[in-house]
């Protein structure tokens, strides 16, 4: 029996393990970065933490959505819309963590990072994307919104890499993570539009997604293990 057949036969178990792995990775990142935020009150860290909180919830919603689809449960669209809202918001938060300084002052007093005027725009966009995809019966609005933000995120990450070249080690992994995510969203679009959700492509997307989260986990753990006197370069 080849690997593909084994994966196909154990699809449900593997889906559960995949969701569990990503949720755990997100939980670790949220806990570690929450501590940093509480100490520093840095808005960028706050948005970054929110991104992984939303990713964790989105992947749990995705799993529930899959289960409901398999059970032919009628109002499955609710789970689909919840999943879309959370994953789109996660992408927006990650993107905004890179550009927030252009819109907010670092000396500004701390306010809610979930409900403020700027983030309200993201909430409205995410809800609109989820509703439009439901009405259109596709995922195109989600795919395109994420491809656009990750394309811009790739450019910002490339600029950050240039700025920090030789100074820090993680920016190249950050750029790799952004390229992987852009690739995953593009593959999702291709799988939906041209390959009728071909299972082998979906396996590839899952592998890319795991790599994306592992890269961030690696970065967070590596930096939180750095000695406070900065003896270990990151």
């Amino acid at each position, binding site marked *: 029996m080849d690997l593909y057949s084994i994966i196909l036969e154990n699809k449900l178990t593997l889906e559960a393990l995949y969701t569990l792995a990503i949720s755990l990775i997100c939980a670790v990142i949220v806990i570690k970065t929450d501590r*940093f935020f509480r100490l520093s*009150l*840095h808005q*960028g860290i706050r948005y970054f933490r929110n991104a992984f909180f939303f990713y964790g919830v989105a992947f749990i919603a995705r799993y529930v959505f899959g289960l409901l689809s398999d059970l032919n449960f009628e109002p499955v669209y609710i789970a689909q819309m919840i999943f879309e809202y959370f994953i789109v918001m996660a992408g927006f938060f990650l993107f905004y963590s890179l550009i927030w300084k252009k819109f907010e002052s670092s000396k500004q007093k701390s306010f809610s990072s979930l409900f403020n005027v700027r983030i309200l725009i993201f909430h409205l966009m995410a809800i609109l994307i989820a509703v439009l995809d439901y009405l259109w019966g596709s995922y195109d609005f989600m795919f395109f919104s994420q491809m656009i933000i990750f394309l811009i995120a790739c450019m910002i990450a490339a600029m950050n890499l240039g700025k920090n070249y030789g100074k820090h080690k993680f920016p190249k992994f*950050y750029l790799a993570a952004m390229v992987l995510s852009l690739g995953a969203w593009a593959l999702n679009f291709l799988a939906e539009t041209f390959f009728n959700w071909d299972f082998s492509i979906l396996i590839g997307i899952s592998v890319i997604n795991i790599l994306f989260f592992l890269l961030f986990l690696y*970065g967070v753990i590596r*930096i939180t293990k750095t000695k*406070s006197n900065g003896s270990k370069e990151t």
Partner: protein
Amino acid sequence: MAAKKRERLDVIKDILQTIRQNREIKPTRLLYASNLSPQMFKEYINELISKNFIKLDIDENEKKTFSLTKKGQDFLQEYKMIENFIENFGL
């Protein structure tokens, strides 16, 4: 060339470091050392007190001094780590 404008995090670190170096410091001396306007200084100090990073002690002669709390000490120890995190992740 103009000096780089200090980030909020740097200002907090500078204030806490000054207090740690002196163990206890009078408000006026801390204001001078912080290189902030009185208004900004007041905002930072209020925030640091409300976040329990520093505490204001008043003795029997009404003499006021600032000192670091455990949380403030922790912040200084982890400051380098947080700075690394922000730079590595482009935040």
